[in-house]
């Protein structure tokens, strides 16, 4: 009885989910086995596995996949480490803590497009502020956005700069759920600060850390606006992400069949990664639980 009522109550939510999530996926799946481009007058014409065959041979897709993964791992790792440090620092009682927290959140509140335009100006050669600083030290101005290595570095840096406050805030919320008397008790037992961090804070923060990890990983694997505005995927395609490639295929090249294939492949990649991450976290959590039980 009760379970029937429950499933009935769940139905609207499930229908909504199906409409906005399952239907697009099915539609992409269907499109990905069709040619639908300017050469077919945008009408879908079945082409078997030709799109998937092309994807397998598409060096640009795999290069972009590598670049997207590298970007996601580097920026999320930096954000988690930096966010944790910032959260611990903000958690400490001090004067003006509220103001500091508000200030720390500022980059997160900026729209990505505005932020990316700002960075593009900062890095401008030779008129940008960063080059003005370089020149004031007697150095020559540097074309930061014309060199793959520096461009990549600043793409990661600007992403970390923007989203680190978000991670910090999430972790700060977690820190506030840890009862102060636990820390007090450990300190009375003579534990060092490092021991408190490793034995108490981090394990209790684990759910928040994994949440931040999954959130950020999902977001950064789909990175689009930052790269579109800051570099347009350049120089020489060295910062192009999978989302940007899918967008180009759909909106610029009007190749909807292949765009659907790229999007679906990206989704599958994301699924595997997030699933793997989740399993890994669960195993880590399990190991820790056993350890503390022992």
């Amino acid at each position, binding site marked *: 009885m009760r379970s029937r009522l429950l499933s009935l109550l769940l139905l609207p939510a499930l229908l909504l989910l199906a409409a906005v999530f399952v239907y697009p996926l099915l539609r992409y799946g269907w499109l990905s086995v069709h040619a639908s481009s300017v050469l077919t007058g945008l009408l879908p014409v079945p082409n078997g596995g030709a799109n998937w065959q092309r994807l397998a041979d598409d060096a640009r897709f795999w290069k972009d996949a590598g670049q997207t993964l590298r970007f996601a791992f580097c920026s999320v790792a930096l954000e988690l480490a930096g966010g944790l440090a910032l959260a611990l620092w903000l958690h400490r009682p001090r004067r003006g803590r509220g103001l500091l927290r508000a200030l720390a959140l500022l980059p997160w509140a900026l729209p990505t497009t505005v932020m990316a335009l700002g960075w593009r100006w900062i890095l*401008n050669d030779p008129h940008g502020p960063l080059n003005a600083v370089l020149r004031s030290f007697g150095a020559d101005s540097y*074309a930061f956005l014309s060199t793959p290595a520096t461009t990549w570095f600043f793409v990661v840096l600007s992403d970390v700069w923007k989203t680190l406050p978000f991670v910090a805030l999430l972790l700060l919320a977690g820190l506030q759920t840890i009862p102060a008397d636990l820390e007090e008790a450990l300190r009375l037992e003579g534990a060092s600060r490092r021991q408190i961090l490793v034995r108490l804070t981090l394990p209790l923060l684990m759910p928040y850390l994994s949440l931040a990890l999954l959130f950020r990983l999902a977001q950064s694997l789909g990175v689009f606006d930052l790269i579109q505005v800051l570099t347009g995927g350049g120089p020489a395609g060295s910062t192009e992400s999978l989302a940007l490639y899918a967008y180009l295929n759909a909106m*610029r090249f009007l190749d909807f069949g292949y765009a659907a294939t790229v999007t679906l492949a990206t989704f599958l990649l994301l699924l595997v990664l997030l699933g793997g991450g989740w399993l890994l976290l669960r195993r880590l959590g399990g190991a820790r639980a056993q350890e503390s039980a022992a």
Partner: protein
Amino acid sequence: MAARATPPSLRRPQVVLCLLAATLLLLLPAYGFSGRSEATPQPIPVRVLMPAPLADAVAAPAARFNALHPGVRLTVTRGPLDTETLSDLAISGLLLGDAPFDLLLVDVSWLAKYAAAGWLLPLEDWFGPEVLAAMEPGARLGNALGDHLWRMPLTGDTGLLYWRTDLMPRPPRDTDELVAIAQDLQRRGRVRWGYLWQGRQYEGLSCVMVEVLQAFGARWWDPAAASTRLDTPQAVAAATWLDGLIRDGVTPKAVAGFAENEALQSFAAGEAAFLRNWPYAWREIEKGDGPVKGKVGVTTMVAAPGQQGGGTLGTWGLSLIRGTPHPQEAVEVIRWLTGPEVQRQLALEQGYAPTWSRLYEEADLQQRLPLLAVQRQALQHPQLRPMTPAYAQLSDLLARQVNGLLTAQERPAEAMASAQRQSLQVLRSLAGPPALATAGR
């Protein structure tokens, strides 16, 4: 903890509000049409989408059109300035099937794609072949495809070479002279850089490449074979020359991140001897109070000794959108906006090159527009970008390869061979099995 992550949840009501507002805005005109009563005849609406600067430029002619045609209500929508962004916006509207505009100002590089997608209505029923015959040779190109006329040209802009009249007695005659003059001026400390152009990974770099390929006797596109020719010795020579400009310090490394405006800013600040840009740059330089004001000459694109140079065609024209409820009135708008009267005003006020030959012969215009003679000359040997529906892909990968060359990721021969290989791949994959390529037609 969910309450802690305030920013996203704060935004949600705003997003919903925006979506609601957008839906209402989209619904309103539709409601307006259906609710129209027969008793009070409303003027027939004709909507045009244009990049903002051109929309501003035709605001006065549009008002005059409305005054002359009380039965039609012409509205001009200001779209984004950047060509590709405007195309993205237009395509979003066209894909939904019911575009919020009846006419679109189409860049020459989009035409084949839009026509193939079936978004345009042919214009030959309204404009006969004699119409284009009254235009300059360059302005005639890029409007017709197959057996149809898809667009009426409004501007006849081409790529031009800007030079400093205070630094040299006359412009260079060929690419060798250009480099020699630039290096000499750099050695003597008169300018920091020799030659500035657009090297960012975007459509502008493809425009530069069209000119450089032409300058060395190479061709990007072979219309007869419907294929690319990017790995010929001439094409490699062109790429080598462009790469050499950066390696020899004639062009700064930063050019690999330059679009039109970055290059113009640096040239207008007096930092360089030469600049490749569109006609608008001249007005920008002259209207300010910069160090090079009154010291800039404009000439047609130079080529290697013994070759014929030519500027890339960057023309805009009006196209009729399929599905417009009022094609007849929309065509009247095309006739008016692309007519000599409006083009004369665009030339005088904004510096856009006219397309009608007779405007170039008017003494008044010749006197008031110092660029007019050069613009006409440039329209005699214009360079058309490949007219194929696959152009966007081909241009994207060429710009990507050449940008890789400029940022020293690859050598010229490798870059061009790779660009050719990828172009063939794109053309093959788009065409698919022969039976499929035509199935949708």
